């Protein structure tokens, strides 16, 4: 039985408190009206002095344009703390979802190597409830017009935009919230049932429970692939309302899966380092690291397929998506490829390296950072545009959510023995050797 150490508790509480303070500061710091932005712009120009004469004269000759610019900037800066909390809230919620998907895959595939890791996966999947509530709250707040994350939620914008008007049958607030509720409730219910069955099996082996979990996992995977695809349209792609991509759902899926497997590996290595998982051997770590590398390459494949097809045909209505990213986020845009593909591939290609804990942890940190930035690059250009910055609101909201995640996960890990009993494949998994 694992007990949550006071160090972890303190660490996660500090993350939560510091993160919350930083996020509140981010909301206070954001301009609350267009006038404030205009004043800010004015001061900015004044301080720059002669350098911005050309710009200044441009503003003077076209007062209306200046107003539009200020309003545009106001929306971006107003969105900044909202987008800052939305990115990690979504990313870390999807990590726990990905872990549960991986767990269901192991059940459905009747994998013989992984049952010793099931409790770790169940622990991480416990974040589905708080994470789902946070994401859903953010979506509700967006639909209450407290922010401008989803441009199609603004009736004024839709009134002047024929492209969005044609999409309102799908993109309208009530339907959007109903869909989101179906996804989140569905995922949570499946996780509750499957995990409950797994806990019940500790009391004694029951083939009925085993079969029930097999069926539930298979059903969940079907439900998941449909809802995941729609979730990626709703929660991420609809931010760039004018743009669409057919493989977007897969692209998000690859990001979710690789971050999820990495999180499983990191938590496993941590718990093993503390002496709680003696039966986990380096072959299990090797298998997780193989999945990390494989899914990293899968992610890069989809990233590149999406980019190449749009870059090659260069159709104006599609290419704006990449044009804005290449112009305003070049370092992050290409940096994610280095972090999520080049480095993991080169580090984890060696079979011996995949058995060494610190190398897997090192690669894992790179992968998690890279996929946070991947979500950042997916969400930020449509919400804050060129006003992005990784500053106090971004870092502190990541700390807040990460702290909450760590607290929930380790709290859940302490609630059940760290090894399943009576699983049909447990003996095989204990002696797994590669």
């Amino acid at each position, binding site marked *: 039985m694992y007990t949550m150490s006071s160090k972890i508790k303190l660490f996660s509480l500090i993350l939560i408190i510091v993160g919350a303070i930083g996020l509140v500061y981010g909301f206070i710091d954001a301009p609350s009206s267009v006038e404030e932005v205009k004043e800010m712009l004015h001061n900015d120009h004044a301080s720059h002095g002669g350098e911005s004469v050309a710009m200044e004269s441009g503003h003077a000759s076209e007062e209306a344009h200046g107003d539009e610019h200020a309003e545009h900037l106001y929306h971006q800066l107003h969105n900044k703390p909202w987008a800052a909390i939305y990115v990690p809230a979504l990313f870390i919620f999807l990590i726990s979802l990905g872990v549960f998907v991986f767990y269901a895959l192991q059940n459905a595939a009747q994998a013989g190597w992984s049952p010793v890791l099931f409790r770790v996966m169940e622990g991480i999947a416990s974040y589905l409830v708080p994470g789902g509530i946070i994401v859903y709250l953010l979506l509700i707040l967006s639909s209450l017009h407290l922010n401008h994350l989803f441009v199609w939620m603004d009736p004024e914008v839709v009134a002047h935009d024929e492209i969005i008007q044609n999409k309102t049958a799908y993109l309208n607030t009530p339907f959007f919230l109903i869909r989101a509720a179906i996804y989140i409730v569905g995922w949570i219910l499946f996780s509750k049932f499957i995990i409950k069955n797994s806990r019940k099996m500790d009391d004694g082996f029951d083939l009925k429970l085993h079969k029930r979990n097999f069926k539930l996992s298979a059903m969940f995977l079907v439900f998941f692939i449909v809802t995941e695809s729609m979730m990626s349209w709703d929660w991420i792609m609809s931010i760039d309302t004018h743009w669409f991509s057919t493989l977007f759902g897969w692209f998000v899926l690859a990001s979710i899966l690789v971050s999820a497997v990495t999180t499983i590996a990191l938590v496993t290595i941590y718990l093993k380092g503390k002496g709680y998982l003696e039966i986990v051997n380096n072959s299990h770590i090797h298998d997780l690291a193989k999945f990390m590398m494989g899914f990293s390459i899968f992610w890069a494949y989809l990233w590149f397929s999406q980019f*190449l097809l749009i*870059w*090659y045909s*260069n159709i104006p209505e599609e290419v704006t998506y990449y044009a804005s990213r290449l112009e305003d986020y070049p370092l992050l845009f290409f940096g994610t490829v280095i972090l999520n593909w080049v480095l993991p591939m080169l580090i984890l*290609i060696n079979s011996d390296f995949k058995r060494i804990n610190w190398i897997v942890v090192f690669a894992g940190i790179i992968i998690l950072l890279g996929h946070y930035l991947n979500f950042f690059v997916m969400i930020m250009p449509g919400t804050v545009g060129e006003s992005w910055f990784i500053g106090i609101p971004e870092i502190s909201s990541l700390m807040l959510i990460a702290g909450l995640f760590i607290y929930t996960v380790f709290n859940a890990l302490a609630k059940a023995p760290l090894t399943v009993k009576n699983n049909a494949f447990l003996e095989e998994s204990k002696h797994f050797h590669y």
Partner: protein
Amino acid sequence: MASKVLHAIFTDDDILMQAVKALREKKYTINEVFCPFPVHGLDKAMGMPHTRLAITSFLYGLVGLAVATWMMNFIMIEDWPQNIGGKPSFSYLENMPAFVPIMFEMTVFFAAHLMVITFYMRSKLWPFKKAENPDVRTTDDKFLMEISVNEANVQAIAEVLHENGAAEIKLIDNK
């Protein structure tokens, strides 16, 4: 090379593994083991070094990547930089996404084929090669172990083999 070798035939891979371990414990050298199928852990039990084929493959892949990059850069950018459908041919980097499918395939092609050829060369396999099979039954269901012996230890080795379940033991001249 010793002038005489012992050929011991086994009928089961588990028994074969035991015999290998017993001989290795007594520090006798096993020349070769002939099996009808791969026996897991046999290479480790015999103390054979790990293969370096994967390393060669990685290096061949790098060669393939270099060849593809050099080829596309020379043809499309340096030699005749035409405007084909508005694709930027001013520098390699600007037009690189279009070359990635070629770079990828060439990397895989070189890594795979050169590694296979390396394997053939290292294990001395080619068409019309004379088969080195000491006993035809080893390709079907028997396992054969070959150990070099001399006058002094032939009896001792034969005894170890016998104790560890060898079905047949033959002393023959080494060719």
